[in-house]
């Protein structure tokens, strides 16, 4: 659950930088609503790569994948699930 707090905080900062003080829910649309733009999307991508080791080159990417905190959270969860599954698979070999 910790990562969701970190994601929420990061997105809140991006919104604050734009002077957007509207409430932010976990299912609020970020990009399709225009609250964040593509420059912010790149920052989210870099944050996910650096903090949560998400590899978009592997899983594919489109902006709808990071359109809400919930959506971002689900990417992090599947990345972490894969990370835990990988050593098990290697061990199985």
């Amino acid at each position, binding site marked *: 659950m910790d990562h969701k707090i970190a994601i929420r905080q990061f997105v809140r900062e991006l919104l604050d930088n*734009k002077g*957007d003080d*509207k409430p932010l829910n976990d299912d609020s*649309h970020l990009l*399709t*609503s*225009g*609250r964040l*733009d*593509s*420059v912010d999307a*790149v920052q989210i*991508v870099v944050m996910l*790569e650096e903090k949560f080791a998400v590899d*978009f*080159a592997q899983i*594919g*990417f*489109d*902006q*709808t994948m990071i*359109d809400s905190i919930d959506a971002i959270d689900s990417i992090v969860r599947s990345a972490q699930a894969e990370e835990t599954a990988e050593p098990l698979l290697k061990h199985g070999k």
Partner: protein
Amino acid sequence: MAEGSSTATGTLLTTSGWNLASFRLIPRIETYPKVVAFAQTLAGKLILLALFGAGLYVGGQAAVPLTVCLAVMTFVPLTRRLLLTLCTLAFAFLLPWFYGRVPLSLLVTTVQVLVLAGILFWSAAQWPHSFYGRRPLLFLFSLFWLILLWAVLLPPGATASPLFWRFIFIFGNYIWFIGFSLLDAKATAHDDFGRQVGAYLPFWGSSNTPFPKGSAYLRQIEAQNAEQLAITQLKGLKLLAWSLLLLLAFRFMTFAVHGYLQVPTFPEALRLSANRMPLPWYTCWQALLYSFFTGLLSLSIIGHRFIACCRMAGFNALRNTYRPLSSVTVAQFFNRYYFYFKELLLDFFFYPTFLRYFKKHKNLRMAFAIFAAAGFGNALYHFMLSPDFIRKLGFWKALVTFQVYLFYCVLLSIGLTISNLRKKRPKPAGFLRSGLWPSISVVLFYCLLDVFGSTERNYPLVEHFRFFAHLFSINL
């Protein structure tokens, strides 16, 4: 592209008694609960459609067929996506056939292109882990260029030649739309091909740049209930009204500046400069500024119309042009000026590059991805936009005559890279230093860039440089 602010917001003065910042030329009717509730009733829907149809008529669009399509989608919202496909197909085939404007052979070629799109989409969805499934865009563009190469290599009188070129023209019109479908095919919950077709040159209008992106985007922004539909439609009506106001401004500007003050257009000034009869430097500046602002207005008008119709159909798309003149950075202007073209460059070129290359070198990674999008992608898009040049001149000559736009792409990429990599400094105090001066600098940058930004192919790069130097009273 934040939509929080309305289309016409005064931003200058804020006094204690009277707040100009909250002034809106077109009120935010979508935030009035009574208006939203009324727009959900039968009478409200009819009035909305009548007003919208009248607006389309005044704006000189195909008001009747568009309003009929929008009415059907308003009253049968549950089958909106199916209706979108049917309306789009009707606009692609029935209307041109009805008006007799398009030869039957072109319609047959359109069917061939759609069949090809269907096969490509189905294969990408069916075999996502195959080589093709992992790189469907590479395959799509390679296919286009192979067919083009084949057509170029055909002997001039070959009977197959017109067939090839016809196919290339239509394929070129649809290629970015098909590309968005192929991107969507990778998603686990993608739309079927029937829905994808609804986003191929949709009935509300589009250039070769998909407005607004593809089927996946429509899925995200579709109104989910009656209230959302009413709000979206009210926003659509507002946007159409704004587009009509801009049309008035455009006509006034053309009349006053070009007609009355006799300010030439940029192509006229460039032609005279190339023929060694340059206008005075200050007239060249006037021509450049006039062309820049009319270009901005035209793009806003047409983009707003497309998006207004899209919203009226129940899809809450972002505006194509959103307050570009208040941009304080080069990157911000690029984002706000032609949003859907920028999105195309991002989805097809920027992200695939950014996510794969130079991950460990932050600045190089960003610069390389920007050059891939604003440089390579931008040039490729515009080169593919006019296969007629390739047909008439051959490939190499067509490329040589494209030199000016290639140079433009390089300059734009450099500007965007610097803008993105510059460290954010604390905002300076005062409206002049924090808002006005950066905005003027950005407009000036794009104005000067426009000297090289036209896709006309009459004059070589050196003539554009000559014009550029003349702006600063330097005669080469």
